[in-house]
């Protein structure tokens, strides 16, 4: 009997919760500014995903080739593009590893493994002072712990 009552109460409670949830959902929609403004797929700028070919603008800057600055990244598997980035040219040991990495096509994992290694080397070789301080502090710490253990 008790179990049955509990079950009925539970069912009633769930029905009430579902009703409240429905009310809350309805309330949400009426309070949301712009709800459904783009409900029609025709209103969405990216539908269909590919549109008929047309230039975005009349100007054709792609016809001129950048000549100032050297590309800071280059792969023998890609042509030099009309514009290119010149931010940080490859340098030092990390630069050698990067050049080696870009000899692999972009679909080979070894390119990214080498680039990841180059990134670690880059951090060490281009932050010499902080790295020396860090290594010194680490060495002192290790020596200190050893000395404490020996006592």
């Amino acid at each position: 009997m008790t179990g049955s009552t509990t079950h009925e109460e539970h069912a009633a409670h769930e029905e009430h919760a579902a009703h409240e949830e429905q009310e809350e959902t309805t309330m949400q929609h009426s309070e949301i500014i712009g709800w459904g403004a783009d409900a029609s797929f025709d209103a969405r700028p990216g539908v269909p995903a590919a549109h008929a070919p047309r230039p975005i603008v009349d100007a054709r800057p792609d016809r001129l080739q950048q000549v100032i600055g050297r590309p800071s990244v280059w792969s023998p598997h890609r042509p030099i593009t009309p514009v290119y980035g010149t931010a940080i040219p490859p340098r030092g040991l990390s630069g050698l590893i990067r050049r080696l990495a870009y000899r692999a096509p972009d679909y080979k994992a070894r390119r990214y493994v080498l680039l990841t290694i180059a990134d670690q080397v880059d951090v060490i070789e281009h932050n010499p002072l902080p790295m020396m301080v860090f290594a010194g502090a680490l060495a002192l710490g290790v020596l200190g712990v050893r000395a404490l253990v020996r006592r």
Partner: protein
Amino acid sequence: MKALTYRGPSWVKVMSKPDPRIEHPGDVVLRVVRAAICGSDLHLYHGLVPDTRVGSTFGHEFAGVVEEVGPAVTTLKRGDRVVVPFNISCGACFFCQRGFTSVCDRSNTANEILSGVYGYSHTTGGYDGGQAEYVRVPYADVGPMKIPDDMDYEDVLFLSDILPTAYQAAEMGSIAQGDTVAIFGAGPVGLFAAKSAWLMGAGRVIVIDKEAYRLEFARAYARVETIHYEDAGRHDVVGRLRKMTENRGPDVCIDAVGCEASGSLLHKLTGLARLQAGAATALLWAVQAVRRAGHVVAIGVYGPPWNLVPLGELMNKGITLRAAQCNVKRYMPHLLEHIRAGRIDPKAIITHRGPLDAAPDLYRTFARKRDGCIKPVLVPNAA
């Protein structure tokens, strides 16, 4: 000029660098007035994106004033106020002509994968970004949009990336009126994806995150239901979502987290061991949670070479999986009208502003999710 520079994982400094210059006749140089820090900048900050070089300047969400104009530029002049898409696109190649400016063929010398991007490692072409006093903007007749006189920089700043990215995600989910949409991640892109889902007539929008303050913000800003995943029965987000949707699962699941997701020890460990690129937990949960024959959309950033994703489940459930970097240019006019009409208030998500010198502190605050941080914005120059 002063610019944010990357020194190593979780370590950035503001340093002096040479001013950018016109390197191609179609370039302009911009004096940056606002530059946002994006959630995807944190992947760079944490050293997770290959070929992030020491000395690089981040920043792909920025707006400013045209300072110098290349001789071939016809649509912009000195003093124009512009907001710039994060994609560097020629506007005329095979892909741009069809609307896919995010995979432009003429701006990235590194690979055949995506277009050039400002301040996003050398795998996207090696361009410096906008978290600096000045930035070089190639293909200036194609990307930048003039800011209307009745709007300020912060009204339109997020048209550079996160607002179109979120809108495109909702669009790729093919949301039909009445659909239930689950969004993983209550960061800025997740919030705007929720707003976009409502615009498309969603019936329910559920946002999942692990930060209580972000979920609270999502409830207030986007009027959504929320799941705090640690409260969802021992991290059983998928089970919770099914219970909330008559055991069927949401019609559409959007991953707005990307490669630094929490919630799975397996993903965390394999990511740390570099056996996969970060942790794809949000995408895993999206595939597991979505109803059969539903849509999963991945717009969180993932890097090379690969991730653990349950392809069997994807195939057997008949799921449509869509993923893309955003073709920003295509969405700017449409979303500008939504902003003007008051349907979306993008600047309401800005919680932190600071000068360029404060960038390292803002990165720390954003990365550690402290101080109620939703979206930090830098102010390198006065308007």
